[in-house]
């Protein structure tokens, strides 16, 4: 019974904090005020102050987590609605995704190698751009550290969601197709969520980028690791 109460409080609390952070973002629309980031920081601070373990929070949180599955499935709907545009631009879309996947694995591996990290950590960072379940699978097969992979994937997701507008401005990336590919390739589902807030077509392109980049990374990573380590 107590568990049920704790779970309900966690869910309702998360919803209230999310609504309040969305209101804050409406008033101060800055990259670092995106609701996902503000909500996460608020909840982390509350849990730390009240000394509540993450596992206790997750008795409710896992019910929200449970929606991530159907959430990914639902991305098929915008994809279907936008299928003609996507079909027409398939080659540019595919090329961008593959370029991003290769750069992502190479830069992660080389930068950690040059700064002297262990082979396990180098293997782990190579999977950071792809959606968590795929990242877990690749990390396992190349001898990385799985809990670390999950956290690096999260950092890739949030940093992309926070910094995308700045990057797009600096590098004059202004086409909605390019923005969608960039966010889906660099920040997987969190990037796709960010793209969906801009437009359905940008979000659809993002979801394609998320899927194809996950497949590409899982194919190229074992080879790159074998050559560079």
């Amino acid at each position, binding site marked *: 019974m107590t568990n049920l109460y704790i779970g309900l409080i966690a869910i309702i609390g998360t919803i209230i904090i*999310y609504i309040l952070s969305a209101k804050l973002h409406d008033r101060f629309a800055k990259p670092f005020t995106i609701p*996902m980031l503000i*909500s996460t920081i608020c*909840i*982390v601070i509350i*849990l730390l102050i009240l000394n509540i373990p*993450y596992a206790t*929070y997750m008795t409710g*949180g*896992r019910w*929200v987590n449970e*929606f*991530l599955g*159907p*959430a*990914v*499935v*639902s*991305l*098929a*709907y915008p*994809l*279907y*609605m936008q299928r003609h545009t996507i079909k027409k*631009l398939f*080659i*540019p879309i595919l090329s961008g995704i593959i*370029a*991003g*996947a290769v*750069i*992502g694995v190479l*830069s*992660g591996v080389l*930068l950690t190698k040059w700064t002297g990290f262990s082979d396990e*950590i180098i293997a782990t*960072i190579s999977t950071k751009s792809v959606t968590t379940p*795929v990242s877990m699978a690749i990390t396992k097969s190349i001898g990385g550290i799985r809990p670390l992979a*999950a*956290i*690096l994937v*999260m*950092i*890739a*997701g949030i940093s*992309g969601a926070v910094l995308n507008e700045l*990057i797009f401005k600096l*590098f004059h*990336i202004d*086409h909605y*197709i*390019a923005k969608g590919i*960039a966010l889906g*390739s660099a920040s997987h589902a969190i990037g*796709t*969520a960010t793209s969906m807030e801009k437009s359905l077509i940008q*979000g659809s392109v993002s979801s394609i980028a998320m*899927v194809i980049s996950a*497949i590409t990374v*899982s194919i190229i990573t074992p080879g790159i690791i074998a050559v560079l380590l």
Partner: protein
Amino acid sequence: MLTFFKIIFQIVILYIIFLLGQWIQQSLHLFIPGSVIGMIILFLLLLLNIVKPFWIDLGAKFIIRHLAFFFIPMTVGVIDYLDLFKGDGLLLVIIVIISTLLVMISSGLVSQWLVQRKEINND
């Protein structure tokens, strides 16, 4: 009120497709996550006109509109790894961010260049 029940019902349909995807992943030992397999299945069902868009559109739009919300409990998981943000770990975090931005820049610029070239050629 009717819309509310429609949304709930449609999310149940999406959930069932997710479970189907997960079942396929586990029985065939695929590395692609069950949710992504579910997404591909739903896309094919829509293309083949077996599932009509209006069976799932309200539920899908509702979830997509609030997509960021569903990630929050997972991202709060960072609480168990706060040590990562000091010492050597901080360097790792910075590398992840740099590499993420490089992916964004390269994939964005390559696709934008090709899209614009195609658009110019078509005019």
